């Protein structure tokens, strides 16, 4: 093995020179990377529903620029770049999973809207809390518990590669190349190009475009050929164009009654259009109107924006690998191999999954599907044997619980076998899993208390202990926490003073920002005019209660309290929950690389709705977003500190930089959302969600939870039962067992399976080649797998953004 130091450094030249660690170049470049990647991932996340790990990308880019181009970055200097970069680019997931919920539920956000700035300030406070709360746990998690933090380990492998010798660098690069090769057919179909008329039928048959897309494309071709469109199409296009403008006007000014009436009238007019016109996509109809009025040429309609069908680039599904044909006694295709009922066996390999279970003839109510994700495989390998417990939870949920529940009739018999895993996941796996996770985390925290106490003592003693000065002092941490708590309280207090309703309870008119309000059941009820406020005052309690019930605004546990006290309690409970959830997330990412952010967001929103009342949606989302950004940054901070430990960085420097710059992240993400919402309003008349380019799938799921809580549909007992199981599971030899088992019951199993294979591979390699070999060569290869997928996804997403 060659361990020659990096060739670009001349030891003679370094004599007497200060070693490069925290430099202006590292910080500035980290800031640039962080801001750009944050905005890109935020947009991509709203569009496709998942985000990408930021640290490895920041490390590779920092590495390439500082060492490759500027030819002066040291290992620890590149680490500073990735620390600063990831402190900014990681928080987007916390925001895009939560903030768009307000837009989906009909609230508005704009530059002039104080709620936007209150939310942003609260999220900035959230990231400060996330960093400040997790700093004192570095010693416990990294030094004492020795959690693996697979992404942090992967980043360390990247940073160390030049010094580790050419062979290891080649292995790392091979890992990146293999990941890209495997992932290309998964990522490429996201890139779509205009389809030819002659291939439309084939694309419909292959399920790549809808019948509506085909009809629209054929219609557009006819219009281009004829140089005009039928009058009913142009008329509907004109109506939709006007409707889009009216919706934007109504959204800008909710008190604009004329705009609201116009929207209603135009919607009715559009609904009455001839069916042949309604069968076409809105963008094509609006394009036809624009072309007929001379605003654009007819040939310009041959574009995806106008509704022309597009075909995806090659993906795994194009291999056409299908399940073996199995027929029933009557000659019809066995429904087990034809879930979509199209008379052809289903694909065994689609663009993202490999259906191993059905290939082996396992009943489809036993979910045995592998996601094609080298990142999960690599993370599994880096976790090794401890990560295997994650697989155990998934096996329990998907191989035992769901099938047995299905066979015993706990899942309704009207559910088809292949739908059973999804039904089971929503009905009981998820709440039980989240409960297990909470119970396990509680045990984990309890059992780690002596270690935490020792770690805190050591930080408190600071420079009096060996190495103590290398941690950020408790004084700085305390100031940061108190400042952040104050901001969260002010934000909670502000939103509680805001009217909870968007429409006047008396006349149904939209409620503007500066309104009359009256207090009822702990809510500020808003009115459009002084007259309606006076009428409300004349209502009796039964009438008012009936109105509140119609708005799903039930009283919360704190409803009878003074609003400021209520806001203070909600803020303090929220902050305490952020501390606890931060530990859970850091433990999860430390042991497995998975972080159950959406589950924690869900619990936060539920907690706030229970405290403040089910109508307290803005406060719920505010604290949900604050928690989400806090816990995402907490896990990122730990990953960065793990990397730092492995390469010998000074924790204090990383902690200080992260604390100083992390506030930029939420601002970038919030501004990105605002820009996207404004652009969507112009283009589609809808801020976000269905009907736009940015469907925000995660936020849609959270919005469904909020309406579920309002409708009294939360399975609290299942959360409690899961927590009891989690506590007792952690009572044995390993306190955090409940966390691992719960995590995989709640997360999508296809990724857990691939991850589990990675864990098994590690164990097999260690057994055959020994631990040293497994670490020395397996780690750089798997670090490459993690980085390769992240880089490819970022690249393809960048192309998607450019093309759209």
């Amino acid at each position, binding site marked *: 093995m060659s361990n020659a130091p990096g060739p670009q450094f001349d030891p003679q030249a370094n004599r007497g020179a200060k070693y490069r660690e925290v430099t202006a170049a590292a910080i500035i470049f980290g800031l640039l990377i962080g801001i750009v990647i944050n905005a890109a991932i935020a947009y991509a996340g709203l569009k496709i529903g998942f985000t990408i790990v930021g640290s490895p990308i920041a490390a590779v880019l920092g590495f390439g620029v500082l060492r490759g181009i500027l030819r002066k970055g040291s290992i620890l200097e590149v680490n500073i770049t990735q620390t600063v970069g990831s402190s900014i680019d990681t928080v987007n997931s916390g925001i895009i999973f939560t903030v768009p919920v307000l837009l989906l539920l009909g609230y508005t956000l704009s530059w002039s809207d104080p709620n936007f700035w209150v939310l942003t300030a609260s999220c900035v406070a959230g990231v400060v809390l996330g960093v400040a709360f997790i700093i004192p746990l570095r010693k416990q998690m990294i030094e004492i518990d020795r959690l693996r933090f697979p992404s942090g380990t992967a980043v360390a492998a990247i940073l160390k590669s030049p010094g580790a010798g050419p062979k290891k660098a080649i292995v790392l690069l091979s890992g990146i190349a293999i990941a890209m090769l495997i992932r290309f057919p998964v990522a490429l179909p996201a890139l779509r190009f205009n389809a030819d008329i002659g291939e439309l039928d084939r694309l419909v048959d292959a399920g790549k475009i809808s019948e509506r897309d085909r009809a629209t494309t054929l219609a557009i071709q006819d219009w281009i050929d004829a140089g005009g469109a039928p009058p009913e199409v142009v008329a509907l296009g004109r109506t939709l164009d006007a409707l889009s403008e009216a919706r934007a006007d109504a959204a800008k000014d909710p008190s604009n009654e004329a705009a609201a009436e116009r929207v209603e009238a135009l919607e009715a007019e559009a609904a009455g259009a001839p069916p042949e016109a309604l069968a076409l996509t809105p963008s094509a109809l609006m394009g036809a109107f624009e072309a007929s009025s001379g605003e654009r040429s007819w040939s310009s309609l041959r574009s995806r924006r106008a509704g022309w069908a597009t075909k995806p680039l090659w993906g795994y599904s194009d291999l056409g690998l299908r399940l073996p044909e199995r027929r029933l006694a009557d000659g019809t295709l066995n429904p087990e191999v034809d879930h979509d009922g199209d008379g052809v066996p289903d694909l065994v390999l689609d663009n993202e999954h490999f259906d191993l279970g059905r290939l082996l003839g396992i009943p489809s109510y036993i979910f045995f599907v592998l996601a094609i994700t080298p990142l999960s495989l690599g993370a599994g390998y880096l976790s090794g044997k401890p990560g295997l417990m994650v697989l155990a939870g998934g096996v329990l949920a998907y191989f035992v619980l769901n099938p047995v529940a299905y066979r015993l009739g*706990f899942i*309704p018999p009207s559910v088809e076998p292949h739908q059973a895993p999804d039904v089971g996941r929503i009905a009981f796996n998820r709440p039980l899993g989240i409960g297990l996770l909470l119970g396990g985390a509680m045990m984990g925290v309890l059992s780690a208390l002596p270690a935490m106490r020792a770690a805190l003592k050591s930080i408190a003693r600071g420079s009096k202990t060996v190495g103590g000065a290398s941690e950020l002092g408790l004084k700085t941490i305390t100031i940061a926490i108190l400042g952040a708590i104050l901001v969260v309280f002010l934000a909670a207090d502000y939103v509680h003073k805001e009217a909870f309703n968007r429409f006047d309870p008396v006349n149904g008119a939209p409620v503007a920002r500066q309104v009359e309000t009256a207090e009822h059941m702990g809510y500020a009820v808003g009115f459009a005019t002084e007259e309606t406020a006076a009428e409300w005052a004349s209502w009796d309690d039964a009438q008012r209660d009936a109105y509140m019930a119609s708005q799903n605004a039930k009283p919360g546990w704190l409803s009878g309290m003074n609003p400021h006290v209520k806001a203070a309690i909600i803020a303090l409970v929220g902050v305490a929950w952020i501390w606890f959830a931060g530990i859970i997330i850091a433990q999860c990412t430390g042991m497995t690389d998975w972080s159950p952010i959406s589950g924690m967001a869900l619990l936060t929103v539920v907690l706030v709705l229970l405290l403040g009342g089910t109508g307290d949606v803005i406060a719920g989302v505010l604290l949900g977003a604050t928690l989400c950004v806090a816990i995402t940054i907490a896990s990122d901070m730990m990953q960065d500190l793990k990397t730092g430990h492995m390469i010998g960085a000074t924790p204090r420097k990383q902690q200080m930089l992260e604390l100083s710059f992390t506030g930029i992240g939420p601002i970038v993400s919030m501004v990105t959302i605002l820009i996207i919402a404004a652009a969507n309003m112009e283009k589609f008349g809808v801020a976000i969600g269905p009907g736009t380019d940015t469907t925000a799938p995660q936020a849609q799921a959270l919005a469904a939870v909020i309406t579920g809580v309002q409708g009294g549909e939360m399975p609290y007992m299942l959360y409690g039962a899961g927590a009891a199981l989690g506590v007792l599971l952690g009572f044995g030899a390993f306190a955090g067992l409940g966390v691992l088992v719960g995590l995989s019951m709640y997360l999508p199993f296809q990724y857990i399976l691939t991850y589990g294979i990675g864990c098994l591979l590690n164990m097999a390699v260690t057994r055959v080649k020994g631990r040293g070999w497994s670490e020395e060569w397996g780690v750089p290869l798997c670090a490459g797998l993690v980085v390769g997928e992240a880089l490819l996804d970022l690249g393809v997403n960048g192309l998607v953004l450019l093309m759209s």
Partner: protein
Amino acid sequence: MKLIANLLLAISVAIGALAASTAYLAPLSLPDDRLIGLTLNADAGRVDNADGSHSPIAHRGEALTPTHLAALRANVIQRRGASLDVRYVSVKEFAWARWQGRWIFALALFGLLLGGLMMRAASKKDLAEADAKAADAPPGESPEGAIAAVLATLDALGRDMTDIADPRARCQMIVQRVGELQVTHLPAFVEAKPRLISRMGLGAYAELMGNFSYGERMLNRAWSTAADGHIGEASTSLANARKPLQLTAAALKK
């Protein structure tokens, strides 16, 4: 005993989860007065329409009525050639008395408690045995041996480096020797965690690891800075690593 404890834990958690999954199921075998008025949390029953489509007998969100109950109890669903009765409906309301799996769940909790206790006892016994074995083991395999080997390597490195004038060669030597420690003795010391906790208690172990980890981090820093060719920073880091590792060795002797 460990195997039995593991089996007990696995079976108990599976049974507990299964029993918990029935918490919001209302069996249709219950008398009408205990079911009427409950709110459905999922569509219930299925009727086949003439056009081949299906409709539920009662929709999610509806309150159960005597008519629903009669229709659901009579409902037979054809699925993949099998005739299936509707036995449960999923409801929003929870009631202890209606939860059929409550005793099984309680039993599962007891199983987990028992399994946990057995696991603790087994782990304690294993650690005591491992500790006894470690006392007889060759010095390199014990935590004391691992830390002594690290310190010996540092001593040797210090001696050997004084003989070399070329900074590049000194950097290479650090990268190679510390690199070896990173995959041998340092992880070996970390792997002794369960035995050390059993012997010292978690609080004392945490203090021990504070010193060890600082020393380890300084060695990592020496490796990184040497790989970057900065002999000054690498030498300083090597020197910084010595004291905490000596403190670790001393704490182990107590």
